[in-house]
């Protein structure tokens, strides 16, 4: 127990306060800088003058006012183009392989005279759920992550932050928010932790609340899948991939616009204030160790995300199957819930199953599409799903149009953060109110945007 006698610490603080004046920090920092400079002058020599300013020269291009943004967009487009173009074939092959294997597993179950409910849970629920995640998600991840990691190790990402800085400042947020946003492209939960680099609590909160508007690992595959199935239907070959990539890029840009707009509105209302100054260091460009980077990011990141997806997808698969097979009256729990949600979902251009998949997918965005498929498949005759075309057929059979796909993409982009992210937000903010808001704001935006899109398209008679 501490006694409340005059505290020597307080006295000390008082004493120091009397001595200190306003620019102590500047004086301290100036002396430190001067010492560093002096030491370097006496210990460092430059033998290749032309190499000394290499980074500066490159920066003049990458962070140029004119070329900065076009280069950024082009890079993003190229990365996504390569991902889509490269992922198609292995995705189909994997799906075919798993479908082929499923036939044998089913045979095995029949040989053993296993009860049909066991086959249902294990094969139609667990096996299908997990293999779907693997075949749909693994190929794009195995391409996307290594390319992203190469750019990251080369030192390009901080330049992205630098380019974005002005926009964030204008919207009343901290420039470093562009860094945490970029981190969100990998994983929102990790990005929430990374907002610690922002000193001011107000700006940190802005970064936390808006982080979700960029697609994370769990949502990239959904966006890419839906874009390639529905958005480029009128094109073939290379153009098809190009159109798909453009749609995905447009989604990302839209997400960034929403981030900036929400930041701007919040900084004018609930989180009022002026952005603080800061220095952003641009690290030197370094040639990455290419093979190291590729191998490590493929192994580490892809396997990590996949593991997470599978560990969540497996139980979710079982749960979905159970819900789809427990009958209440003459309908299943799953179908009943979907019907309940349907009228509302229709207003958003979705359907009850899609909304239900998003709700059941709260623990991890990775499992939304698998849950949706399981939901669809449980309703009618079971289709053998092999390859992307039959996947599209399932969607079409359930009344999908390009508008459904667009709205699902928008909803996926904008809706509430996943369970892990929410837990992290609570841990970081220690506030139920802000955690709730970080759930409510994106959800409200997702509803408003999809509602508007759905009704606008119908009103304009585009469909």
């Amino acid at each position, binding site marked *: 127990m501490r006694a409340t006698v005059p505290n020597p610490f307080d006295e000390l603080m008082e004493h120091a306060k009397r*001595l200190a004046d306003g620019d102590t920090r500047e004086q301290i920092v100036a002396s430190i800088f001067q010492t560093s400079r002096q030491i370097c002058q006496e210990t460092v020599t430059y033998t290749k003058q032309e190499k000394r300013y290499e980074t500066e020269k490159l920066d003049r291009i990458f962070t140029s006012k004119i070329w900065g943004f076009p280069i950024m967009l082009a890079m993003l487009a190229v990365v996504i183009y390569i991902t889509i173009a490269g992922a198609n074939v292995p995705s189909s092959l994997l799906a075919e392989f798993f479908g082929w294997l499923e036939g044998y597993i089913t045979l095995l179950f029949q040989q053993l005279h296993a009860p049909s409910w066991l086959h249902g849970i294990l094969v139609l629920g667990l096996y299908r759920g997990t293999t779907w995640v693997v075949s749909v998600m693994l190929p794009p991840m195995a391409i996307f992550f290594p390319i992203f990691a190469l750019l*990251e*190790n080369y030192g390009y990402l901080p330049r992205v932050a630098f380019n974005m800085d002005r926009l964030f400042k204008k919207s009343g947020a901290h420039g470093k928010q562009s860094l945490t946003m970029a981190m969100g492209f990998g994983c929102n939960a990790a990005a929430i932790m*990374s907002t610690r*680099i922002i000193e001011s609590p107000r700006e940190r909160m802005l970064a936390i609340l808006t982080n979700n508007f960029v697609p994370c690992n769990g949502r990239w595959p959904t966006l890419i899948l839906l874009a390639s199935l529905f958005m480029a239907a009128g094109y073939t070959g290379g153009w098809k991939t190009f159109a798909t990539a453009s749609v995905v890029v447009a989604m990302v840009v839209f997400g960034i616009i929403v981030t900036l707009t929400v930041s701007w509105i919040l900084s004018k209302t609930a989180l009022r204030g002026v952005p603080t100054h800061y220095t952003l260091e641009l690290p030197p460009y370094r040639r990455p160790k290419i093979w190291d980077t590729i191998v490590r990011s493929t192994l580490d990141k892809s396997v990590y995300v996949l593991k997470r997806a599978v560990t969540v997808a497996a139980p979710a698969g079982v749960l979905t199957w159970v819900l789809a097979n427990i009958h209440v009256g003459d309908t299943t729990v799953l179908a009943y819930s979907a019907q309940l949600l349907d009228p509302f979902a229709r207003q958003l251009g979705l359907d009850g199953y899609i909304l239900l998949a998003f709700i059941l997918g709260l623990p991890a965005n990775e499992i939304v599409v698998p849950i949706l498929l399981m939901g669809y498949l449980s309703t009618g005759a079971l289709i053998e799903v092999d390859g992307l075309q039959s996947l599209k057929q399932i969607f079409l059979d359930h009344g999908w149009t390009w508008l459904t796909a667009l709205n699902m993409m928008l909803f996926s982009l904008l809706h509430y953060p996943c369970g892990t992210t929410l837990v992290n937000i609570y841990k970081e903010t220690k506030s139920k109110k802000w955690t709730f808001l970080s759930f409510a704001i994106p959800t409200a935006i997702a509803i408003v945007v999809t509602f508007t899109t759905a009704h606008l398209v119908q009103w304009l008679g585009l469909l």
Partner: protein
Amino acid sequence: MNKREYTIALAGNPNTGKSTLFNVLTGLRQHTGNWPGKTVVHAEGFFTYKNEEYRIIDLPGTYSLYSNSADEEVARDFIIFSKPDVTLVVLDATALERNLNLALQVLEMTDRVIICLNLMDEAKKKGIVIDIANLSKKLGVPVVPLAARNKEGIEELLETVARMVHGEINTTPLVVSYSRAIEEKIAKLLPLVKEVVGEEYPARWVALRLLDGDTSLLHALQHHPHHFLKEGATYACHCAKSV
């Protein structure tokens, strides 16, 4: 002989290869990247060298230790309160001047410092030549050149660490001299600081922080007695609280 485990802290600016060095030393696979702010939360690992156990903590990369932000505070508190047996300050050899600022600040906090001059391969490519012996003499602590991602210089570093934990290296850390006005104030404050916080903490540095109006430090000193955080895990909580 009772065996003890030595604690090593890894400090440095963001993006100097701290995490790479951490991975090399521990064999762990923490993700690394050319990206300031990668290590926001600390990572901890273990390694054995010549039959002795070491625990190594990868502190968040920071440009200063003036507790401007949560991560700077984490790094600062660890060095001050956990008193690691050795603090490795990782510097980017291609940007020595900018990186030295942090090293100088660490030298004000502890004398058990080894400077890791990382990315020597890059520096060589860029034609930057650094007089290691002279740098070491000026800073008053060992300087070890490294190319962590090629695993160059690791053996020398481990040997230096081992010698330092056994007290075989005498260091005389550079004392940054400030303007006369500040030096006078430090002199005035120093006796009182020593009296209140004791000999356990670097008095000159504490005095400087107080002059800078750093109240969070004094709070930390006051509320966390000396045994604070030897076990390591709790400092993360402290940091979260102060956000």
